[in-house]
């Protein structure tokens, strides 16, 4: 068990492209940590650099109290599960799980004993003699996990652990993975491009873009208090409403209409009338009413998308399109005139230039 610390970590590819750019991250001991970002953001590169599969260009990586920057992958006390699981097709399940111990010259009986114990912990009893191609996707993933944890690593790295499973199995595997991580208590870092997966699994999330860290925080923090418009737009199943607009005197202008600035912002300096800002509020934090309300924006329903237990309603306020989530019984018909109220607590302001959040 160990914490992972990177200091000004840089991974530069030939040609000067930086996969990882000045990363300073501390991953606590026993933490379930997500690296989240769109494809090409450098999250997998960071994971592979921690694993030792990519050489560090500059900066350091420590695991526990050891500087592992220049160590070989095998000497770092790190296990990794690859996206395609990388099971060896010519070995059966037992030999696959026992392989890391075979490399470390553990006696045959001893390593097969550990393989069986680990395997039964992961519901692989009775599959030990099978070849990987005789297993389902979920079973293959459990074999890969068993192989990774059988040697009791300090750190477990997972590259897109759920992406090769079909949608239903993915939810099952998600719960299973969280349980396994909690039981083992091993420091775990996983890479994902799926924000829902990161929110559901991780204790903390690092959101990355172009090799740079955008925000580091708990799922609640990155969901409720995104540090910039990129994180705000990336996190959340329904994208956050981000409206570029200007301030009035103590108000936010949305088209022809105005709503008051949230009271928490009243004392902030620099929020003068006429300043350009981005107003952000999640569809879940907007309320919709078919009756006129004070302190609300009025507009017309254009599209209603059914999400099952709820509906995503698009409302045209002037030229601005706002999306609102309403529960399934309350959905208005398209064309209805509605009033939209933003939860003051959940309204965020971002700077137009820097895209950073202004709301504390």
């Amino acid at each position, binding site marked *: 068990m160990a914490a992972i610390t990177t200091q000004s970590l840089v991974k530069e590819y030939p040609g000067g492209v930086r996969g990882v750019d000045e990363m300073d991250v501390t991953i606590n001991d026993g933490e379930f940590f997500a690296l989240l970002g769109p494809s090409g953001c450098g999250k997998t590169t960071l994971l592979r650099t921690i*694993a*030792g*599969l990519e050489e560090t260009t500059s900066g350091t990586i420590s695991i526990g109290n050891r500087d592992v920057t220049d160590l*070989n*992958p*095998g*000497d770092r006390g*790190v*296990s*990794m599960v*690859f*996206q*395609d699981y*990388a*099971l*060896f*097709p*010519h070995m059966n399940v037992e030999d696959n799980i026992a*392989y*890391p111990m075979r*490399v*470390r010259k553990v006696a045959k009986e001893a390593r097969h004993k550990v393989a069986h114990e680990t395997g039964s912990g992961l519901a692989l009893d009775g599959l030990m003699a099978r070849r990987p191609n005789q297993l389902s996707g979920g079973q293959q993933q459990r074999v890969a996990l068993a*192989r990774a944890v059988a*040697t009791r690593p300090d750190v477990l790295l997972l590259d897109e652990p759920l992406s090769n499973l079909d949608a239903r199995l993915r939810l099952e595997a998600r719960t299973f993975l969280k349980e396994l991580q909690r039981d083992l208590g091993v420091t775990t870092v996983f890479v994902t491009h799926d924000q829902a997966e990161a929110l559901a699994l991780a204790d903390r999330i690092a959101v990355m873009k172009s090799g740079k860290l955008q925000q580091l925080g708990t799922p609640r923090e990155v969901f409720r208090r995104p540090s910039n418009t990129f994180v705000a737009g990336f996190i959340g199943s329904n994208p956050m409403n981000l409206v570029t607009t200007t301030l009035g005197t103590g108000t936010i202008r949305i088209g022809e209409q105005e709503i008051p600035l949230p009271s928490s912002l009243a004392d902030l300096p620099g929020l003068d009338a006429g300043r350009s800002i981005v107003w952000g509020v999640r569809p879940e934090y907007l309320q919709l009413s078919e009756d006129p309300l004070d302190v609300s924006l009025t507009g017309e329903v254009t599209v209603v998308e059914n999400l099952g237990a709820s509906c995503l309603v698009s409302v045209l306020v002037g030229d601005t399109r706002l999306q609102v989530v309403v529960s399934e019984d309350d959905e208005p018909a398209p064309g209805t005139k509605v009033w939209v109220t933003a939860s003051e607590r959940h309204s965020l302001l971002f700077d137009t230039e820097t895209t950073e959040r202004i709301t504390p």
Partner: protein
Amino acid sequence: MSQVADPLVATPGSRKGTGRRPVRHDDVAGLGKLRAGFFVAPALALVGLFLVFPAVWTAYLGMTNYKLTGLSAKAPDFVGLKNFTDTLTDPAFHESLKLTLVFVLFSGILGQSLLGFAAAWVLRTTNKVVKSLIEFLVLLAWIIPSSVVSFLWVALLDRGDGTLNAILGTQGTSWLTEYPMQSIILFNIWIGTAFSMLLFSSALASVPPSQMESARMVGANTWQVLRDIVLPHIRGHILTNTLLITLWTFNTFTPYLLTAGGPNHRSEILPVYIYKVAIAGGHLGVGAAISLIMLLINLVIAAVYLRVLRERK
């Protein structure tokens, strides 16, 4: 579901009005033996004409005393299995067969395979430009006509003005007469390595990188990665490659252009031996008999490899 017949699905009865419909046989293609035979007949004819007939003709010639010149060139006599028994008990044939096996083992199986694999393995991680350049040069050795290549090698190994002697400072060493087998083995490796290299290059590209990385993650060294991951993955490629180069090396005549089987039969591999008996010596019947023996050896080699190949799980 309803039992109403779907009009889009043809039922046996609905065919009646459409006149003569070909009967569908229950083999895989649904053709039946007669029509299937008709389709493969042209191919079978070609195979028969160019492969089976020459083999049978060789077998027939091997049982005659057919010669290049003289009376038996005009009217060869049937001599039964005499040529075969003579050959099989001839020490010269034994010696030639032994040389051939040494030649195949060192220049084909060990030399070309190992060197080709090593080159493919190293080039895997080499810079693209360097890789293409080396592949081009190696391939060149393979595609240049053997007569040209032989001339280059004669120039290289020549006693008087040979390049090798100039480089090593060993003027007067006659490589081709002092080390005939070593010379033709190196020569054949030089020509043939390209094939193994290309084959193994594509074989290595088919090994998923994540599997090699998985092994590296648990601390496996290069040798362990090769043994546990790479070789099991490319087992089929290795066997195919070995089969092909064994047969090619077994049957190659090009070394004749360097040493002509000499000196004193010391590099007289089977194809050269046959040439000397049949063409130089004029004993076409005996030559045919030896050729047939060689053909049988080839068949045995191929059968063994195919057997091993089929055993893979």
